[in-house]
């Protein structure tokens, strides 16, 4: 059964609908601390948010955050590294977020309905591609993240 957000413009309401729908699909979900996101357990723990827009595309934003180890690289070296990741891959967005954590973000725009198949493939893809990046950059990320 598709997630139907036709004419829904309230992001909190849309996020609640998405959370219930994910539960129906068999995902383990829990509250995310705010009304605009929730936690979804895929291969990793994803923070899922939804920006509703009834006249344009809705967007699901899946974010994974890692604490940077205190004895890791200097901030300038991290910024060079995330710039390199962003230029090398066309998977998602990497950044050092405003709290100083390493953040990875995937976007899924859709019009008004979302199929279970596309959503499952999106989460599987996010899990798989993030795993691939972590493995390829084990030299930096293995030591640099808590």
């Amino acid at each position, binding site marked *: 059964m598709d997630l139907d957000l036709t004419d829904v413009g309230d992001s909190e309401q849309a996020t609640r609908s998405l959370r219930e729908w994910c539960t129906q699909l068999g995902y383990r979900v829990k509250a995310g601390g705010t009304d605009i996101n929730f936690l979804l357990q895929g291969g990793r723990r994803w923070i899922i948010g939804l920006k509703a827009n009834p006249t344009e595309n809705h967007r699901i934003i899946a974010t994974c955050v890692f604490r940077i180890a205190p004895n890791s690289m200097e901030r300038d070296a991290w910024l060079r590294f995330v710039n390199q990741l962003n230029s090398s891959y066309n998977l*998602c967005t990497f950044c050092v977020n405003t709290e100083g954590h390493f953040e990875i973000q995937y976007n899924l725009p859709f019009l008004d309905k979302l199929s279970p198949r596309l959503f499952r493939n999106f989460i599987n893809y996010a899990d798989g591609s993030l795993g691939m990046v972590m493995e390829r950059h084990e030299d930096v990320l293995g030591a640099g993240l808590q």
Partner: protein
Amino acid sequence: MSLNLELGDSEDDLAAVAAFHDWAQNLGYKTTLRPDGKAVGVRGRYGFDLHFRNIPGMKRLIMRCYFPSNPDRADMPGRFALANQINSSFNIGTFWFDADADFACQFVLPFQDRLTPALWREFFSFSESGVTQIIQQHAEDFRPFMA
């Protein structure tokens, strides 16, 4: 006849590029198939290059545009910091300074097996607006770096 771009189960990235070129042109977009067939140029408010990455179960349309920056690389750390600031405060696309020190903007649309005109139009419009928003909001930050 369907107005959708139907790519079915094909994982052929180049075939998707060629099919998209004709489809978008029929929708009224100014498109140019690149000589190597790997990308389509789409001219709107900005000049975007678009290509596909298709894997079983999900396809991705990847759209990029570039803005030349000052080739003097004295302050690459400043550029990396600016790109990171944009990436950490917006959640609309991916932004970086490339090997030529140009500013790159990337937007990705994952989809199942077909693109509808409405999904594509909204995605393209959203991407254009996103670039404009970032350029305007960070005009002063870009000034020292741009050509």
